[in-house]
């Protein structure tokens, strides 16, 4: 029960214990007696906001409640899925489909019936969670799984001047960090792994890694066959021969009403794995320094089966409902961890395609890839594997492919529990304003100097952080070619993380998102389509644009520099932003993203973690999993330039080895 004598006794003794260590210079803290009843009083009176009721959230809510917190608000927009149940222990099978925030609350009230837990089944980016909302809390605790939301919350906490305790876990790794405006770095002061992007030609013509094949299978082929037909799609291979007109290609993918499904399937197969490859081969330039792919035709792989016309149609497998429709089941293949042969992949490809049309016909034309859609996963795996075979890339099992295509974070309960404990410890320090005791704590898989849990002092704010220090940015862009919408989508939203931006050129409002007066709607829409230099208030070299997000209360100035040419491979956006804490794909310093699914695959010098990493999962080779998530906002992608793969991973920045480098900017 809250306020019990026994519990108070525990917290009375909780204060910073003076200790000197050989690397971290800890100041001598106040002695015991001075902080006696403060901790429990601070806890009792605290109003806490939790963002996220998932893996970390469940553990955190439980530990906060046990620790004596009595007023907890929790925001989570998700509903419960079966795959959550291995670690989100407040949920049961019977809760699948229900709101995480609400069920978590009910579960905790069972063992702490008299505390106040306010759940919100909503997106933290909703306008109701504005600065005033955040201001009512003593501290905000994040248990999120994506960078976008984290940045959003970071800005709101800065605007509201409320301390933020951030955290993340992936597998056995985890971290807890403390962010207090003006005193420590904000969440965005340090570079975070940025969205991984692939130039479109790599996906359409020159894949070299399995993830390229997945992106092709998922975002091009699957989308083309089963998705919105009106969407732009880059499925065509770029060839030097301009005679391959897009109209011919359109015909191939559209299935005529009377077209036999098996014929249609083989036609598609032969087109994408055979004809398209031959077309690509015809462009000699591409293959000068690369291995040539091999065209694959169904008749060569499935020669024995083709002899039975329509024989397979009769052997229909019965499915309980449309959710259990599965090509694997149909073909008697049981193990998702098996690596299929080219023949098996081809069979799955054709069978999955057939099943979509015969059993899920009404879905065709409006599907987007969903990692929990078994048939979609089967199709994408098979398609990616066949393409991989064509390009000499080793195949993956369905289990692994699903992880890549679905951007699945591997996760266990224990790491989340440890991190939750660490979060509560930091929270109590924050409530007591015990600044000198704040720590960033890293949970390691392999001990570093005997430590599995490694605390480090926070840093001072980064003076060049464009988020908390208001440093102006510079943007190199071709002001005669780029449109305002490119700037908004690729820079303001994607890179600067603004949700509902406002763009101004001096005092001229060029664009405003969200609720806008009727007479302005048309003007803003028109502005988006205009080239920068041709805007009503022209944007040229030397212009300073002001971008702002009212909800995040975040303002940023961007100096525009005109530039004519950009490198297609290195600068696929035709824009270069500087002064912005740039992502590190090949870090020189000791910071490194560790064991997240977003490890760089660029082939450039990969962070040290890869050579030390001991593979626990993969039986044969060490696989570098990379992200191919289905991020929100994908609709806004500009297909002409690239396929943006947005990193939705928990990001971890691991500190290892020499701590000396960090001494300079420590708090005390």
């Amino acid at each position, binding site marked *: 029960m809250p306020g*019990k004598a026994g519990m108070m006794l525990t917290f009375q003794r909780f204060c910073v*214990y003076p200790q000197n260590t050989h690397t971290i210079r800890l100041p001598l803290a106040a002695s015991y007696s001075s902080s006696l009843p403060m901790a429990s009083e601070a806890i009792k009176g605290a109003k806490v906001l939790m963002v996220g009721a998932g893996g970390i959230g469940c553990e955190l809510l439980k530990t906060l409640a046990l620790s004596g917190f009595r007023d907890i608000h929790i925001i989570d927009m998700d509903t419960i899925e079966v795959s959550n149940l291995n670690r989100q222990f407040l949920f049961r099978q019977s809760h699948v489909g229900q709101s995480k925030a609400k069920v978590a609350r009910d579960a905790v009230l069972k063992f702490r019936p008299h505390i106040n837990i306010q759940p919100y089944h909503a997106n933290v980016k909703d306008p109701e969670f504005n600065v005033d909302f955040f201001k009512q809390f003593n501290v905000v605790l994040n248990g999120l799984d994506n960078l976008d939301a984290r940045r959003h919350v970071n800005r709101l906490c800065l605007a509201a001047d409320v301390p933020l305790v951030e955290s993340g876990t992936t597998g056995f790794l985890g971290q807890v960090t403390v962010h207090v405006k003006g005193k420590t770095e904000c969440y965005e002061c340090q570079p975070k792994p940025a969205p991984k992007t692939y130039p479109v030609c790599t996906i359409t013509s020159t894949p070299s890694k399995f993830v390229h094949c997945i992106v092709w299978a998922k975002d091009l082929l699957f989308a083309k066959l089963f998705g919105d037909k009106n969407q732009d799609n880059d499925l065509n291979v770029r060839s030097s021969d301009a005679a391959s007109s897009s109209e011919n290609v359109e015909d191939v993918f559209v299935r005529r009403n009377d077209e036999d499904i098996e014929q249609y399937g083989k036609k598609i197969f032969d087109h994408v794995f055979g004809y398209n490859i031959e077309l690509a081969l015809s462009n000699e330039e591409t293959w000068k320094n690369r291995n040539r792919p091999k065209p694959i035709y169904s008749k060569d792989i499935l020669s024995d089966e083709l002899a039975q016309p329509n024989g397979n149609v009769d052997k229909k497998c019965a499915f309980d409902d449309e959710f259990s429709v599965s090509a694997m089941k149909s073909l008697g293949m049981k193990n998702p961890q098996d690596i299929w042969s080219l023949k098996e992949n081809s069979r799955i490809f054709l069978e999955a395609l057939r099943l979509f049309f015969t059993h899920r016909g009404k879905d065709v034309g409006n599907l987007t890839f969903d990692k929990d859609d078994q048939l979609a996963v089967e199709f994408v795996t098979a398609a990616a594997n066949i393409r991989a075979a064509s390009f000499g890339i080793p195949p993956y099992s369905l289990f692994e492919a699903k992880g890549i295509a679905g951007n*699945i974070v591997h996760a266990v309960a224990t790491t989340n529990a440890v991190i939750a404990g660490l979060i509560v410890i930091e929270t109590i320090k924050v409530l007591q304003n015990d600044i000198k005791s704040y720590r960033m704590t890293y949970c390691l898989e392999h001990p570093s100097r005997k430590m599995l849990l490694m605390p480090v002092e926070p840093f001072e704010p980064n003076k060049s952080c464009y988020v908390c220090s208001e440093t102006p940015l510079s943007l190199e862009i071709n002001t005669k070619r780029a449109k305002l919408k490119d700037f908004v989508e690729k820079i303001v939203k994607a890179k600067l993380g603004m949700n509902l931006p406002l763009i101004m050129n001096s005092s001229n409002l060029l664009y405003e998102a969200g609720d806008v007066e009727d007479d302005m709607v048309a003007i803003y829409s028109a502005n988006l389509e205009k080239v920068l230099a041709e805007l009503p208030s022209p944007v040229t070299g030397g212009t300073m644009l002001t971008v702002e997000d009212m909800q995040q209360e975040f303002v940023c100035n961007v100096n525009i520099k005109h530039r004519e040419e950009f490198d297609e491979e290195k600068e696929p956006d035709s824009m270069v932003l500087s002064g912005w804490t740039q992502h590190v794909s090949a870090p020189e310093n000791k910071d490194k993203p560790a064991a997240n699914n977003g490890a760089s695959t660029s082939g450039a010098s990969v962070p040290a973690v890869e050579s030390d990493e001991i593979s626990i999962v993969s039986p044969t080779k060490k696989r570098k999993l990379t992200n191919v998530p289905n991020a929100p906002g994908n609709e806004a992608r500009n297909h002409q330039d690239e396929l943006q793969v947005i990193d939705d991973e928990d990001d971890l920045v691991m500190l290892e080895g020499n701590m000396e480098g960090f001494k300079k900017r420590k708090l005390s």
Partner: protein
Amino acid sequence: MDGDGEELTAQETALYDRQIRVWGADAQRRLSKAHVLVYGMKGTIAEFCKNIVLAGVGSLTLIDDRIASEEAFSSNFLIPPDENVYGGKTLAQLCCDSLKDFNPMVRVSVQKGDLSSFDVEFFNNFDVVVVSSCSLPAKKLANEKCRKISKRVAFYTVDCRDSCGEIFVDLQDYKYSKKKLEETIECHLRYPSFEEALSVPWKELPRKTSKLYFAMRVIEKFEEAEGRSAGEVSVADLPGVLKLKKELCAEQSLNESHVPDTLLERLVTSTLEFPPVCAIIGGILGQEVIKAISGKGDPLKNFFFFDAFDGKGIIENISNSNA
């Protein structure tokens, strides 16, 4: 019950998907065949039980005949604070009812009796034994019994007081393999028993050995000397504890600064557990047990310490070879 055949069922694959991506299907299968025994159902053990039930072990057996009281659920989220529900039941019984809910595929049961009363044959039913709320003699005895069994029974102790926690690991003679880049490395660790570890002279330990190790040993010895059960100390005992500390340090030729009075004061004054530390220690312990059962990952050898005051989670190797 062993899994049906060698494949994971569709239900297991769906439920355990995220963790299979961490440790593999093979490890998951081994987990489903493992039998775990736990003694002493306080907050940290509750956390540990939650973790391994979620992980999907074959069975979990709980021992704790203490009748539930208000103190019990101050740090134990498995016990509903409703007298109508908890009245009269033992801690083991209450925790068992809650744990079953977390994962219907795990068989959770209660065993009545005092730890010291079970013979070697009893321990032979298990692959892992975890004890807490346990006096020094009882710990040693249980450890010895486990070591007498020909198949390896992994033995762990855990103790959390104030905002500190200690884990001890004994995997006896432990061989495992791991992959480094493209190679497979064979590893071999030899663990001392609890008694053997404690017999290592203090002055032979590295200078920076965690102060918590020594502090816990002083209190352990005090409780034994005074005939107390584990955790049965209070601030009134502080003078006696400090006196014992002086004696032990002199005996062991260890400078007293290695066992700060302030630390001892903390540990005797608030013997209740601190929930965040329960979560941390319960999590680390859970991971260790999963490693030992699955044979994957470097197990820690052989002590782990955490103190919320400095926030460090430290591994100490307290053994004669000091390897």
